């Protein structure tokens, strides 16, 4: 068998002083889409931040190999250049910098890293238009300053557009579905589906099942208290929707809490 694209073993990490991940093990192969679900505070976002190399998170044990290499030893920009993409839960505004200029700079940084020639402005425009079409997004977003004055839905769509343009091998989508109305959710889901490829893996971090109605995962994992407590096929998401996270934490029987499609779930 082919080695996994991402292999996490017994990962332990803290955010600030607080231990959050307590021995997480996960293996993701190229072509697969994994969903990681879990209640608030279970460590979902910390996992995303650790994999992307955000300051403020600290790995205290375990390993994460990406394409067989120690992912955790790389600087954030080197992880990105090696093909790791994080769709942010809260995309950041960069006033005065147009999306298209920023993306060209980013793509060329990645291409240089790969030893490929840089794209000039004309070639880049062709590329970016083609990618925007693929994820069915308007080019209007491209000329605006990065996320500045964007609605919540536009910010999330912009993350998918960036993913399409930068062509990563491993995408981690951190609650990309949160705060979206149903129309926006469908646009984002269609974009994600359009980018599924045999050589690309995706990890969808989500609180709710509803995204998974549109993006059908190969595997679903439940994260609780810093560990994956259950893994299964796509049907696991439905089970969670029916029973809530409560039964997993062992502090109540099924149906005790609100469903995972509800507005707020505590673990």
């Amino acid at each position, binding site marked *: 068998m082919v080695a996994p694209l991402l292999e996490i073993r017994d990962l332990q990490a803290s955010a600030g002083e607080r231990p959050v991940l307590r021995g997480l093990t996960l293996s993701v192969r190229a072509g697969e889409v994994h969903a990681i679900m879990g209640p608030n505070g279970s460590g979902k976002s910390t996992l995303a931040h650790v994999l992307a190399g955000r300051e403020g998170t600290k790995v205290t044990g375990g390993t994460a190999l990406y394409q067989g290499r120690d992912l955790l030893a790389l600087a954030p920009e080197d992880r990105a250049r090696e093909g790791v993409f*994080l769709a942010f839960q809260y995309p*950041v505004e960069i006033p005065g910098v147009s999306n298209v200029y920023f993306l060209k700079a980013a793509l060329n940084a990645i291409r240089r890293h790969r030893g490929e020639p840089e794209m000039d402005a004309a070639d880049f425009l062709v590329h970016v238009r083609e990618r925007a079409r693929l994820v069915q997004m308007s080019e209007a977003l491209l000329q605006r300053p990065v996320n500045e004055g964007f609605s919540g839905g536009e910010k999330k769509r912009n993350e998918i557009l960036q993913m399409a343009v930068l062509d990563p091998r491993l995408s981690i989508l951190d609650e990309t579905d949160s705060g979206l109305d149903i129309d926006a959710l469908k646009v984002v889901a269609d974009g994600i589906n359009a980018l599924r490829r045999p050589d690309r893996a995706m990890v969808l971090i989500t609180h709710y099942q509803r995204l998974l109605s549109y993006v059908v995962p190969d595997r679903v994992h439940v994260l609780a208290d810093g560990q994956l407590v259950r893994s299964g096929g796509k049907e696991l998401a439905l089970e969670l929707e029916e029973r809530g996270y409560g039964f997993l934490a062992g502090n109540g029987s099924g149906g005790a809490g609100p469903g995972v499609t509800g507005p707020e779930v505590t673990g």
Partner: protein
Amino acid sequence: MASPETIHALATKEYPYGFSSDIAEETAPRGLSEEIVRLISRKKGEPDWMTEWRLKAYRHWLTMEEPRWANVRYGPINYQDIIYYAAPKPKGSGPKSLDEVDPEVLKMFDKLGIPLHEREKLAGVAVDAVVDSVSVATTFKKKLSEMGIVFCSFSEAVREHGDLVRRYLGTVVPANDNFFAALNSAVFSDGSFCYVPKGVRCPMELSTYFRINAADTGQFERTLIITEEGASVSYLEGCTAPKRDKNQLHAAVVELIALDDAQIKYSTVQNWYPGDKEGRGGIYNFVTKRGACRGRNSRISWTQVETGSAITWKYPSCILQGENSVGEFYSVAVVNNRQQADTGTKMIHIGKNTKSTIISKGISAGRGQNTYRGLVRIQRGAEGARNYSQCDSLLIGETCGAHTFPYLDVQNPSGQVEHEASTSKIGEDQLFYLRQRGLSPEDAVNLIVNGFCKRVFKELPMEFAVEAQKLLAVSLEGSVG
């Protein structure tokens, strides 16, 4: 736009213009006296009225005190230890053609990316090249003179266009205006003169490139630009200096005059040597710049990108006399390491329905201290005057400072004045976001900074906007990571 690659290449460089050239120089003895003032005037072959004008300024200067109100700190300046006149040989009146220019001087400008040879001239830009105290070459002179435009060194203007110089010199910045303006008026050595006659739009950018080369000299250039009725011109100045351990004084005066319906756009890319990381050496940039919108519907626009100098003290201002006249000030000021800047503008509304806009972007990094100081005055007769000011500060790191001193003086109740200000820090979340997309920390900072300055860069002529971006990258080198 500059690609991040060029920015990166530049970001890893140190001050790239720090070389000095081995040019044969003729210098005056150290120190300042009436004798020195006369010597400078004599070297330039000036008429008596000019010599007298200088001497009057000198005598007044002796009665003045160096201003200390600016938010900058530096040790005492010994005015007797400065060389007030240095000229590359051949001396005095300046060469008549490029063939007479010292090849070392031409080489120096080539190295600076400013080719003066006719065959390689910057397309569409006429350049006056000033080294130390004299102008060494002015390009495109003939083409411009066919349209009646005078563009030449100040020395030449005094000799060839004495009536014009005499009519306007000191009418915007009087010789006794302030300590440094008085000093300049006494010892100014060269600079550029530009006159655009009635109804003529200057077809190309005019540019002066100032270069300090000699050690221990001060540079005191003087620029005078006059646009008659309906005329317009866009003018750009650039400045560099070699790395030297000792501070060097640069005290320039710029006067702009716009008559009815005339426009002047004055852009500066100031990149004097800023000193080293510990604050040793660097230029003291103490400059008086002022424009008078004398005519109706006239417009004067200042755009400055200030990245160099150890200390900057500079307030390009507009006196809005003519009805409906417009004054604009767009500024980017960067301080890194131990640099200090106290810069801003004055907008003096005198005429009816005059308008002014102030956009100031201050960037502080390292241990730099950046001060915006601005005055908006709406005088009693300035019915319907309006001002909009926006002053934004961006901080990089924990050890720098940003300060804002906006002064408002509204004497006419119909005046409208708006002021917006912000201070922000480059955030970890912004940096992380950009790095997660593959940008190095340095490129990420440059991108954020360029976005921050965009409103001002838009005002620069295209090719200089690119230059300005590169400069910013060099100036902020080492500010993160």
